[in-house]
């Protein structure tokens, strides 16, 4: 039996449910409401830029001299307003002709009506027929059915349970009582398309543990970087979102890298980095991150951000941290020393690096930093600390890279393409030599080059005379390294001397003698087959340079060496016994000329 209280209670519950469904339907209708989307800013007029782009490379320019003249004036000269208008009219006429010819004219050119445009850029929340929401009436209807189910299932007597149809209906209603009709058409909503992946500074301490020193370190590194980044981003906030994103990305990378490397460097040198109290400590620690960031982002001569990867950045930062721990003075009183060095490297080496392999720049920066701490007072004296151009390793790098990047002269045969690894091998050797002996960079009297420049130039000039296809770049690099080692041991290799009617540097004489006796076209093919192998040529060049460095670079010694080479060639040509080890031994024990 139905009593009034039941009905009132059911009425209240049902009312709430209906109101809730009504509210949801209203909210969903609002979500689904169409929006007119405004187009971004652009100039809708046909401009000279559109017309020049259209005509560039087109046959119309070639076929119509007047159009060609007009094009040249608009594209490269200073056209009058009338000429520009004439050019645009020409564009419109030729375009119609082209479109008709190509069958791409589809409709009238009448301007689009406001209403039509609005219709086209009026955008629904969901694609047509893809709304996950039930229609409003469906939702309310669903609620009404639910109310009905509640009513009939819970109010005894509302249905005649005794009839078979009544019992069946009640059972069915009870069985589906838990289903939410209103939600039955709901589909899964748009998936999660983006993640807030920014690693915040707050998350970073866990990487290093809760140690007191680590906390101080993180604070110092983060604070400096965050300040630097904030200032940068504020400057471009309203005018260049692209740069803002770039700053944000590099800021994160540098922060991660500094913190990632800090555990093995800063924390193992706490006295250097964290022993200083107050702002100085913060400045020294944070200078690594900020200086690297500034060098990457501010360099105008080359876009370093394109050259750095996570790995190269890590290596550079590690080198910077180690170098600073060895030699805190590198930071300078204003803590910008590191930035000056990196900036100077970019400016001085980018020209040659662009020709050779731009990817070497980050590695050159690392190498220069790594080697800087070893002999800092000589390499970058205190009085030049504000002038990174006086840093000897930067000068040395510029010197040899420029020589390597010089284009081959007419008649040059050997034109190597150095790989990044090969360039870095040479750089490692050259920089190590300069660290050991800065006099490599002393300019020779009456000669523009430094000793280093001369050694590289003479070696390359000789190697370029090797007929094509005889030695690989790898072998050439090994010979170049051997030549530098030879000059390091005996500077007289660069002295000029007369040899067979020609006066020139001993190093050049030696290398060309080797080429003449082993690699040239005049050499018997049987001899060349053995001696011109890359590995053997390298061993012979190394042994010759080494021995001459020992016994002295003289005309007589060079002649002795030539005899040994000629004899070896003769032995091989005539089929006599010949053994590489014996031959190398002979070179190594070459007697001193009287």
């Amino acid at each position: 039996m139905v009593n009034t209280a039941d009905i009132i209670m059911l009425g209240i519950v049902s009312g709430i449910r209906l109101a809730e469904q009504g509210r949801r339907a209203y909210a969903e209708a609002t979500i689904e409401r169409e929006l007119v989307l405004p187009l971004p800013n652009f100039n809708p007029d046909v401009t000279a830029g559109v017309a020049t782009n259209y005509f560039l490379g087109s046959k119309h320019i070639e076929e119509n001299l007047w159009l060609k003249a007009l094009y040249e004036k608009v594209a490269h000269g200073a056209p009058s307003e009338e000429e520009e208008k004439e050019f645009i009219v020409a564009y419109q006429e030729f375009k119609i002709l082209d479109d008709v010819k190509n069958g791409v004219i589809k409709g009238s050119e009448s301007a689009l009506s406001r209403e039509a445009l609005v219709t086209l850029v009026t955008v629904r929340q969901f694609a047509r027929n893809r709304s996950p929401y039930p229609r409003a009436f469906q939702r309310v209807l669903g609620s009404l059915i639910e109310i009905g189910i509640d009513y009939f299932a819970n109010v005894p007597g509302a249905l005649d349970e005794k009839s078979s149809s009544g019992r069946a209906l009640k059972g069915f209603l009870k069985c589906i009582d838990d289903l939410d009709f209103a939600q039955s058409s709901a589909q899964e909503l748009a998936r999660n398309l983006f993640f807030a992946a920014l690693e915040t500074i707050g998350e970073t301490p866990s990487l290093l543990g809760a140690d007191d020193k680590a906390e101080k370190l993180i604070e110092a590194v983060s604070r400096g970087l965050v300040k630097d980044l904030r200032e940068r981003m504020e400057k471009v906030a309203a005018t260049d979102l692209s740069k803002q994103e770039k700053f944000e990305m590099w800021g994160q990378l540098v922060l991660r890298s500094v913190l990632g490397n800090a555990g093995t460097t800063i924390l193992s040198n706490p006295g250097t980095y964290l022993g200083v109290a107050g702002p100085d400590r913060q400045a020294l620690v944070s200078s690594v991150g900020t200086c690297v960031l500034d060098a990457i982002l501010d360099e105008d001569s080359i876009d370093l951000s394109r050259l750095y990867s996570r790995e190269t950045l890590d290596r550079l930062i590690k080198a910077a941290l180690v170098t600073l721990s060895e030699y805190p003075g590198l930071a300078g009183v204003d803590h910008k020393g590191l930035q000056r060095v990196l900036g100077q490297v970019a400016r001085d080496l980018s020209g040659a690096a662009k020709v050779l392999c731009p990817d070497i720049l980050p590695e050159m920066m690392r190498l220069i930093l790594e080697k800087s701490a070893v002999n800092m007072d000589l390499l970058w004296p205190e009085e030049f600390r504000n002038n990174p151009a006086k840093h000897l390793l930067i000068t040395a790098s510029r010197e040899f890279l420029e020589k390597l990047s010089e284009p081959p002269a007419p008649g040059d045969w050997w034109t190597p393409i150095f790989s990044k690894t090969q360039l870095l091998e040479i750089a490692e050797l050259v920089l190590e030599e300069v660290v050991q002996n800065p006099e490599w960079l002393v300019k020779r009297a009456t000669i523009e080059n430094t000793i280093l420049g001369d050694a590289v130039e003479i070696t390359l000039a000789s190697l370029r005379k090797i007929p094509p296809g005889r030695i690989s770049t790898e072998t050439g690099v090994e010979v170049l390294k051997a030549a530098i080692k030879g000059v390091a041991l005996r500077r007289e290799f660069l002295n000029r001397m007369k040899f067979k009617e020609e006066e020139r540097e001993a190093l050049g004489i030696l290398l060309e003698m080797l080429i003449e006796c082993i690699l040239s076209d005049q050499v018997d093919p049987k001899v060349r087959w053995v001696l011109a192998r890359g590995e053997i040529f390298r061993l012979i060049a190394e042994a010759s340079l080494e021995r001459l460095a020992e016994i002295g670079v003289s005309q007589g010694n060079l002649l002795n060496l030539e005899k040994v080479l000629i004899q070896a060639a003769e032995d091989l040509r005539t089929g006599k016994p010949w053994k590489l080890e014996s031959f190398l031994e002979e070179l190594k024990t070459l007697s001193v000329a009287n």
Partner: protein
Amino acid sequence: MGVKRKDGVYGLKGVLILLFVVLMSGCVSHIQTLRDAQDEFNRAAFIENAIKMDPKQGDVVTLGNINASYRLSLKILSDLIREKRADLEKDNLVGVAYTLKALTEWRLGEYEAALTTIRIVKEYPANTLLPRDTAMVEALRGLIKNDQAYAHMVARDYSYGDIKTLLNESLGDMDKGLAVPGAGENLRLYLLMAKLSVLKNWLDLKGDRGIPKPASFNEAAEKQEWCEQAKPVWNHFVAEINRLGTQEAVSLEQGWANRLGMPGACR
């Protein structure tokens, strides 16, 4: 019994209606306010688009009206989010409100605020943003970059390379919006037109003698680069136009064809 039952049914009906009215009127004011903001935004966008296609219609008063409508929409939305955030969240309207706010801020040139708004809405669970709003949030960075590039072109205060970078990245960001599943054909058409607007700016940048070109500038290579970007956008745009198949759509295609020299420019 029968009368009693009849009275009961009438009573139920009355209670239901009364409750519905009371509950609805009290609980939906935030929804109504959001709709007001949508109306203002639509009004401004309607006029702005019309002026973009036909700048002669853009007198000072009209431009002022556009700005006023966007400003009013932003005020409504800012107040609404501040005062009724919980209600918006409960009704799954918070994504709609934030997206509209970000779009309004973009049109008013308040780019930092727009990006902040995006950042906030992205902190909500993924299903807070529905397809159109997701696509617009994804594409908004690109829309902003285009407008920044355009502003630099007008002011001629930026290098050719920097403006081109903004335009190129703008195209990439808009692709993120286009990649959102579930977005309707009109949204795709809108985003493609936005990309065509970027390409138009690039053409104007190339043709602007007041912005010096870098030493490495090569006309033919630049055109090729432009065409590599323009061709797929144009083909996609034409495919969408054909799908719509209306006379208005064809007129729209014709307008963009003239504006960009397509498809002939890249044949």
